[in-house]
């Protein structure tokens, strides 16, 4: 071990590159984020609480977190179905569908926003038939939900897909030949092995949807207390020069997303410890 460490040190540049890395990381990421937390400390706990418990803030947080969770759940179910079709079945266009799963990652959010709005507006290709059924999507909370589903789908698919691909086929064959029905095999054998990946995908899709701005604001309608998301409320407070309000809402959202990343890291470590080394 010490021999390895000594040999590694023969490569030059550790001090220099590490110093540059830490300085640049501090300038671009850490100091700006620390500035946000420092700013929030200028507020007394009472002020902080008053901002957060105001009706409009509470409603914006409820819309963002509630709809993001609902959309992440839809993504969990539909993402699993998509992964199953892509990994287990052969059908025409499979590779194309596999490739387009990444579109929500790559498409700029503002473009997604105007496109979804045009699609689901009352005269849009999907909005018109839905309106005939009495369902209004664009400019209602349903629109926010749709945009959040769009933005979250690749997270579930891309975290679960590699795990299903690597799943040992012998386990399923064993379950099947021991008399388990196909349904039992899926629920009792395959689903538990995919569990950590499914939860990770759910958490990532949720985290992304909570903070999402560009693809949501066009379709949302942005009615205070009804269809106003928390990131939009931050922007509105900034434009009113109510920096304290913007900071308080941002701190709450940041803390939640840090908790989610921490949970995801934990989850992945737990998943790795569960799988015995092959």
């Amino acid at each position: 071990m010490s021999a390895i460490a000594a040999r590694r040190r023969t490569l030059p540049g550790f001090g220099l590159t590490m110093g540059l890395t830490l300085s640049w990381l501090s300038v671009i990421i850490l100091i700006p984020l620390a500035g946000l937390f420092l700013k929030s400390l200028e507020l007394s706990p009472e002020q902080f609480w008053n901002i957060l418990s105001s009706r409009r803030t509470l409603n914006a947080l409820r819309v963002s977190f509630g709809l993001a969770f609902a959309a992440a759940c839809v993504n969990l179910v539909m993402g699993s179905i998509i992964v199953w079709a892509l990994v287990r079945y052969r059908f025409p266009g499979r590779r194309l569908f596999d490739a387009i799963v990444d579109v929500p990652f790559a498409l700029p959010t503002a473009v997604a926003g105007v496109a979804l709005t045009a699609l689901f507006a009352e005269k849009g290709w999907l909005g018109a038939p839905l309106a005939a059924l009495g369902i209004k999507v664009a400019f209602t909370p349903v629109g926010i939900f749709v945009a959040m589903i769009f933005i979250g789908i690749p997270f579930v698919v891309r975290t679960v897909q590699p795990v299903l691909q690597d799943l040992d086929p012998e386990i399923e064959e064993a379950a099947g030949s021991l008399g388990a029905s196909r349904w039992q095999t899926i629920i009792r054998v395959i689903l538990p092995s995919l569990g950590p990946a499914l939860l990770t995908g759910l958490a990532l899709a949720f985290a992304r949807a909570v903070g999402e701005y560009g693809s949501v604001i066009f379709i949302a309608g942005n009615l205070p207390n009804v269809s106003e998301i928390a990131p939009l409320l931050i922007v509105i407070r900034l434009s009113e020069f109510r920096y304290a309000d913007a900071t308080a809402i941002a701190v709450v959202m940041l803390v939640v997303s840090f908790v989610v990343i921490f949970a995801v890291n934990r989850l992945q470590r737990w998943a790795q410890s569960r799988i015995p080394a092959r």
Partner: protein
Amino acid sequence: MTMQIADSVSLSTSEAKARAHAAAARDNLRTEPRAVRIVVIALAMIFLTVFVVLPLVVVFAQAFSRGILAYLAALAEPEALSAIKLTLLVAAISVGLNLAFGLVAAWAIAKFEFRGKTFLITLIDLPFSVSPVISGLVFVLLFGAQGYFGGWLRDHDIQILFAVPGIALATTFVTFPFVARALIPLMQEQGTQEEEAAISLGASGLQTFFRVTLPNIKWGVLYGVLLCNARAMGEFGAVSVVSGHIRGETNTMPLLVEILYNEYQFVAAFAIASLLAMLALITLIAKSVLERHLHEGDELRDD
């Protein structure tokens, strides 16, 4: 003699049949009835069509709804051209900065062992989990009129917010992890042997990096730059907060899409949007090509 041959033939065909039967039975254990398969595939295709294909198609349909001349005219507007120029400039700055950072950080993290490495990688990943709006907000709190450095900047007549530096900073923040995250696992996997050999043969550190390390990671570098660039050109939330929306000056392409859309200039809005959508499609195609090159590298190393 002939009977014997016939015997062995019939034996081998029945054996083959039995084997085929067993294989089919085993496959049956791992798949679902035909009806279930069709339903699952149909659900996946319908969902992806509604949520991914149709939004993409709508962009182009709307952009060309008044014909190709109206489309080209919209793109030739001075406002559109200045937005395109600004987007290219900002992307060049932030991709350049993040490329330099990514190479330096990946060298420190992948080629050496030290405590707190996982924590450092988590810090580099932070921007991925920060809402774009908050990524813009942090710079307003630093450099805005009421911000920590706001007074000093005003006294020295330096403009960061509502100007190119602020837009470039916010974009750099948002795209910070891309290059480093593409390079760290790749360089960790490649180890340090080749570099050590170069050093022991008398090469300098920089020579080793440019002649040994860089050729090994070139596809990874391109991959990181590609994803970084796509996000940099398409970033909306963070840029929207710091840009100030000064027409013809601080509007990037995504911001111009918003402005034109809100003014009901749909053809113009979707024309700009179509350029960004093409950027996304080209990025995805290039990404799959690069992934193939990266996997080829894996196979070569496995041999």
